[in-house]
């Protein structure tokens, strides 16, 4: 293997995560009673793509699990099985499991092996449910087989002899899966091992196995097991010549000369493939050179993924349905990449490796495969070398195939590029510099006032516009629609409402509202928490809702929109609402300060206190009283705010306000002595010039100021920062009322300077953390201004009072 696959891992992880998310969204949209064929196909394709690339990259656990999932999906989309609610549940669970596996491969967390087994078993069980009415389904399927003259119902129970050949993969060698397979096959029939590798562990390929298997069961009951343990696609099952009766029963299959395929065909070298493609009337396209020996074998099921599976025709007949489609049916299907193929073809040939036109037939039945065991090892080696090529094909083929079916989904695939976040951040930084430089130029020019030539002034005005546009465009690169977060909530609501026995409908709006990528990542957890809370505490049980005269189905609304440079996200429910008195009594119980005079919003804010919960019972969903305080802290650490509105019996609405981005901050600049500081605007409530009588002292140490009937602690910035104020009296300066962590304080500064959008710079890059300062920025005049960490400053004031006292 000359190519180092690890370099593609990250792409694989990202793509698989996207496929999983896509699959989950589609599953949730799916109408169980009347599933949409397009959606089923899309789900199938997502699972299939994961399996394909997982196989290529050697993540056997992912590939195996997806394979089972895919089998079940395939049966459903072919209407061999009726979709049931429990299947959707199983799919969702399997999706979670796959996500865990992905994370585990990325070094985060681990996978619970028993869970893997459980889910695989569950999926297998679901897909094997049809075994009883197999023939009926088979009949149904052949009816739907697009006019193919395919009317054979194979006597599956005839004693078949299968020739099974495979090269086990490293993982299955390691855990003894081969022995397990043999044992399993033994339970279904009689196993004769024709050849086995001399030293099983000799190398990655493990060695070649050949088994003769006498059985009465249909091959699909063991093909998947073989596929699991085989190195990606390095297996083959053919019906042995002993079971001939089927021979000419397919009108479709004419006898043709049989080109003996050496080794697996699959591992054919390209030159010979080309040769064969020349002889093939189907003009197999050379891009698929790897598969070109198909005509010789007869049936190829290019499933598009690197796990290529070749089934012999006969088995194909037996399998009938099964994941690998029968080529015979797709009569006259031209060889092409599936772009133009209709849905039917697509669902069969799976998009890109569209079955070959069935001109060269497989007479394998009569012509037993030459003993391949002599050549299989070199063959499998050459096969491995081709893996990258297949991947390429799969990658290029996939978007085209999906575009033909789901044009909406595919559109985003080609029109975007993957760029590392660092590059984007670097760009944003550079533009930040440009903005500062531009501001400096503008300031210098304004000093020249009259003397500045008109051309300069015009040029600067133009520059200002251009830099602003540039900054906006660059910032928008980091912007992502909030649907990335919202899309996970239908699942959360579905799972939880099921668990809690409630009926809940989730309505979302404003999914296209864009938010900085950094914020998107950090808002997900708090929002999930809010939604869980609404479900658990807000929405009542259906019985209670009916008795309250409400629709038994509760509604949770999730809204996002822009408002004045902020993103507002609302989580609302039409549930019971917050019970003011209950909160108050609970708060007193916990020893919190609570009085009946408090306003509703103050009372509601109590639920953000640590350890507070009004739930009478602790459930495994919520009610432990940890959470809302974390929610608020998380949101505040993003520079945002949370507000609660609630009406008893009508519902609750929690409003989260976030800044558009983390890189730029709306700030108010204040002067203290000769220094300028930036206050994040989101913390500023109001500012006022204090009157002498407003300021009082407590025990001659702490000062408080009376603002609209409230006494707020006064934080004198120049005292805690050891600066010299311009003023001697507090009445000469300005009090800025700040609100942080639910408490208010008045910050004394010399003067308000202005309001700016500032680019946040790290102090820690070259220095260290400074208490009371969250960062720095560069002002228009080129000077550095520190951005105050409001809550830390308030804390500092508190502790300095304590020291003084």
């Amino acid at each position, binding site marked *: 293997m000359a190519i180092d696959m690890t370099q593609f891992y990250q792409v694989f992880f990202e793509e698989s995560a996207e496929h999983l998310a896509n699959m989950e969204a589609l599953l949730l949209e799916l109408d169980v009673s009347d599933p949409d064929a397009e959606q089923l196909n899309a789900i199938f394709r997502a699972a299939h793509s994961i399996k394909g690339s997982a196989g290529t990259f050697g993540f056997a656990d992912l590939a195996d699990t997806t394979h089972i999932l895919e089998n079940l999906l395939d049966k459903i989309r072919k209407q061999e099985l009726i979709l049931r609610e429990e299947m959707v549940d199983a799919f969702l669970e399997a999706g979670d499991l796959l996500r865990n596996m992905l994370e585990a491969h990325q070094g985060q967390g681990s996978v619970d092996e028993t869970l893997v087994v459980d889910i695989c078993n569950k999926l297998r069980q679901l897909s094997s449910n049809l075994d009883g009415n197999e023939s009926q389904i088979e009949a149904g399927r052949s009816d739907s087989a697009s006019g193919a003259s395919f009317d054979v119902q194979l006597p599956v129970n005839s004693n078949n002899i299968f020739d099974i050949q495979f090269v086990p993969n490293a993982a299955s060698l390691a855990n003894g899966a081969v022995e397990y397979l043999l044992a399993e096959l033994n339970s279904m029939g009689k196993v004769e091992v024709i050849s086995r590798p001399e030293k099983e562990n000799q190398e990655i390929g493990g060695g070649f196995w050949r088994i003769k298997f006498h059985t009465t069961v249909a091959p699909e009951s063991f093909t998947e097991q073989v596929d699991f343990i085989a190195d990606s696609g390095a297996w083959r099952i053919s019906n042995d010549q002993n079971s001939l009766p089927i021979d000419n029963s397919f009108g479709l299959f004419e006898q043709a000369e049989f080109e003996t395929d050496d080794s697996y065909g699959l591992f054919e070298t390209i030159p010979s493939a080309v040769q064969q493609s020349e002889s093939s009337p189907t003009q197999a396209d050379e891009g698929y050179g790897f598969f070109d020996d198909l005509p010789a074998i007869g049936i190829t099921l290019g499933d598009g993924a690197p796990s290529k599976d070749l089934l012999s025709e006969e088995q194909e007949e037996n399998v009938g349905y099964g994941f690998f489609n029968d080529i015979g049916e797709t009569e006259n299907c031209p060889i092409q990449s599936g772009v133009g193929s209709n849905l039917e073809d697509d669902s069969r040939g799976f998009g890109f490796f569209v079955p070959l036109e069935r001109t060269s037939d497989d007479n394998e039945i009569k012509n037993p495969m030459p003993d391949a065991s002599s050549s299989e090892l070199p063959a499998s080696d050459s096969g491995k070398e081709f893996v990258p090529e297949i991947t390429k094909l799969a990658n290029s083929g996939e978007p085209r195939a999906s575009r033909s079916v789901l044009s909406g989904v595919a559109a985003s695939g080609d029109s975007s590029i993957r760029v590392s976040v660092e590059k984007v951040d670097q760009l944003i*930084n550079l533009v*930040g*510099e440009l903005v*500062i430089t531009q501001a400096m130029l503008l300031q210098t020019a304004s000093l020249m006032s009259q003397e500045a030539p008109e051309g300069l002034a015009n040029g600067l005005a133009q520059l200002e516009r251009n830099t602003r546009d540039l900054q906006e465009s660059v910032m928008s690169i980091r912007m992502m629609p909030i649907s990335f977060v919202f899309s996970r909530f239908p699942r959360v609501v579905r799972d939880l409402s099921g668990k809690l026995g409630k009926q809940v409908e989730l309505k979302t709006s404003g999914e296209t509202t864009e938010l900085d990528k950094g914020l998107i990542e950090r808002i997900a957890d708090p929002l999930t928490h809010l939604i869980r809370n609404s479900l658990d505490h807000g929405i009542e049980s259906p019985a209670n809702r009916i008795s309250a005269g409400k629709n038994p189905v509760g509604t949770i609304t999730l809204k996002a929109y822009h408002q004045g440079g902020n993103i507002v996200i609302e989580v609302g429910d039409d549930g019971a609402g917050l019970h003011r008195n209950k909160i108050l009594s609970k708060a007193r119980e916990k020893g919190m300060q609570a009085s009946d005079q408090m306003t509703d919003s103050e009372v509601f804010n109590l639920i953000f206190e640590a350890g507070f919960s009004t739930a009478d019972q602790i459930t495994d969903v919520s009610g432990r009283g940890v959470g809302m305080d974390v929610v608020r802290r998380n949101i505040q650490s993003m520079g945002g705010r949370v507000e609660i509105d609630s009406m008893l019996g009508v519902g609750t609405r929690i409003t989260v306000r976030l800044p558009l981005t983390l890189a730029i901050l709306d700030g108010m600049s204040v002067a203290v002595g000769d*220094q*300028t500081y930036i206050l994040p605007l989101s913390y500023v409530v109001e500012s006022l010039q204090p009157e002498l009588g407003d300021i009082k002292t407590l025990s001659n140490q702490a000062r408080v100021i009376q603002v609209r009937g409230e006494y707020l602690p006064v934080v004198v910035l120049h005292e*805690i*920062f*050891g*600066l010299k104020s311009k003023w001697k009296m507090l009445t000469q300066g300005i009090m800025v009322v700040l609100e942080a962590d639910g408490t208010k304080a008045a910050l004394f500064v010399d003067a308000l300077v202005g309001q700016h959008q500032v680019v946040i*710079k*790290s*102090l*820690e*890059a*070259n*220095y*260290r*953390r*400074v*208490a*009371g*300062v969250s960062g*720095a920025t*560069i002002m228009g005049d*080129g*000077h*550095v*201004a*520190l951005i105050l960490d409001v809550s830390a400053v308030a804390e500092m004031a508190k502790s300095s009072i304590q020291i003084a006292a």
Partner: protein
Amino acid sequence: MEIISQAPNPMTDEEQVSSEYLTFTLGSEEYAIDILKVQEIRGYEPPTLIANAPVFIKGVINLRGTIVPIIDLRIKFGLGNIEYTPFTVVVILNIARRVVGVVVDSVSDVISLTPGQIRPAPDFSGTFDTKYILGLVSLEQRMLIVTDIERLMTSADMELIEQVVD
């Protein structure tokens, strides 16, 4: 405010590779530091104060978009007159992947020294711990104190870098 070329001119002297050193004065003492650590030299401009920082940390400046802390070594070592004139110089150092500015009285010149010329310093204790001194060099009438500026700047004494144990 010229930017000093960072490319040393390797010369062999007595079969020993010489390195270039930047010399500067603090009060009456003359120091030499490895020129490869020096990014540039610029004039002093009043920095933005950092609250509750040690006195020798003057604050931070904007160096073409980077926030750079400024340290006055004269205050740190209690040398010379602490005054800021148009001739006061800030040496911008590139140390441990950080950018730090150091205020000195004046920058003298760039000299080449071979390891043989650097004599070990006598052991003594003081504000300027000898562990930061690589050695002493006598050059005509002058004595240069060759300083391990990287070690000095990253030391806990300078309070520049958050120490792991804090």
